[in-house]
């Protein structure tokens, strides 16, 4: 029985409350149903790895959580606050969704830094203009964050002059600048040359270790096994199997997951 593994998140980061609750999420693009009822819970401090084949709906699921894609139906609750939805799934309250988005920082596969701004300007952009933090304060904090991801000396450089790994680390600094409750990573290392993957994973590993709540879509199975405390395997828009990494990777139940794991190994 595929979903035999516990539906509950692993118990370690207990008593901290729910960070993300996704209930019966459906999403169609025209006649193509990409998500067919996905439910997922993440508590504060959880690192949830989402794995699955190409086209299984991983990105779509992540993008529905901050409403970059409009769900067709379902219920999404962030920090106990349910997102108000119209009958067609679109967010009913633009203010609410904008406020919630500032707490759900996203890191994209293609980095998506603002190319006409320097790294420092990229990092202070949201704190200064959306969160209305004072400029001096935002700059001081941005320098700390850029130092932290190893880019302290590149603060005044434009993204186009940096390697992919450096750009992705800058994008992580930009995400950290809003002090997010949850970080959403969509294949943060897939666009990188193999020798640059490590430097980005190191940064993410540190974030996991300090207890950041993260949803991480990844093809790096070894890394998922190491940092996640909960792994979700998506297959054709459904959660085929989920559980602690040791279970999912060490003792997969479903035939599809077994096949998937052997194909990516």
């Amino acid at each position, binding site marked *: 029985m595929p979903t035999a593994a516990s539906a509950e998140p692993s118990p370690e980061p207990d008593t901290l409350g729910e960070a993300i609750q996704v209930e019966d999420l459906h999403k169609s693009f025209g006649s193509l149903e990409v998500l067919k009822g996905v439910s997922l819970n993440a508590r504060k401090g959880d690192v949830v790895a989402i794995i699955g084949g190409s086209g299984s709906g991983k990105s779509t699921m992540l993008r529905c959580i901050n409403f970059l894609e409009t769900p067709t139906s379902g219920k999404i609750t962030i920090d106990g606050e349910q997102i108000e939805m119209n009958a067609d799934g679109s967010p009913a309250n633009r203010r609410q969704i904008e*406020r919630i988005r500032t707490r759900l920082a996203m890191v*994209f596969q293609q980095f998506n830094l603002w190319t*006409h701004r320097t790294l420092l300007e990229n990092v202070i952009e949201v704190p200064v203009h959306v969160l209305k933090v004072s400029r001096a304060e935002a700059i001081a904090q941005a320098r700390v964050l850029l130092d932290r991801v190893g880019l302290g000396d590149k603060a005044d450089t*434009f993204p186009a002059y940096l390697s992919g790994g450096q750009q992705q680390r800058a994008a992580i600094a930009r995400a950290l600048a809003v002090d997010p409750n949850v970080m959403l990573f969509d294949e943060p290392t897939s666009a990188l040359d193999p020798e640059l993957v490590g430097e980005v994973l190191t940064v993410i590993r540190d974030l996991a270790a300090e207890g950041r709540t993260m949803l991480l879509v990844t093809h790096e199975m070894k890394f998922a096994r190491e940092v996640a405390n909960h792994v979700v395997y998506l297959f054709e828009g459904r959660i085929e199997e989920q559980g602690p990494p040791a279970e999912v990777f060490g003792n997969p139940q479903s035939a599809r997951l077994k096949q998937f794991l052997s194909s990516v190994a």
Partner: protein
Amino acid sequence: MELILETLGLAESAQLLSLSPPGWGANLLRGLVNSLKIAFGAFGFGLLIGLFGAYGKLYGGPVLRDLLAIYTTVIRAVPELVLILILYYVGTDLINKASSALGYGRIEISGVVAGIWVLGIVQGAYSIEVLRGAIQAVPPGQIEAARAFGMPPIMTMWRVTIPAMMSFATPGLANLWLIATKDTALLAIVGFSELTLETRQAASSTRAYFTFFLAAGALYLIVTLCSGVVFAWIEKWARRGQPSLREDRT
């Protein structure tokens, strides 16, 4: 011998072009200032129409999109001279009808305002297309990143889309600006004293056609050269952060 004649000829021209009363230089310069005022106003008005129109065409409802399509198609299809005549006479006529309906008398419409309105509407149609293309050239991921961080739509437009599209828009906008400066000459037909009309008056009063039209041509050329410098500077600013191809090759 020839040299002396030439010097004499030039001396005569210099006298005709001098800024103090016997010369017509001041009239030409006044015409130039009027031309630039109109060009500047029309370009700005056109940009405003262009920005709203481009967003309307990209994100507006079907009715708005159809209306904008009609506007850009018609304006770009009809010769500018004809448009200027239509917009000028229709515009002044409408305003006067409105003012007499409200019980006021005929209103004297300032030439500069009329010129800006007429040319601005023409410029707007071209601006819409330039800006629409530029907005579409912005990598969608940059706008998506802004949305994902909770930026409201208007802020996204000012902070992300417009700065990011500037490098795509500046060459087209520079063209539009130069067209605006030269289209002001067409306003001579409705009797507005911009550079070309002032030149014609000076030339026909003195019979020195060659001198005055050459001088006017030189003034237009100077405007173009100065604009080139300014736009090169704007383009450099708009392209900040993008490594230039030439830099890469060296």
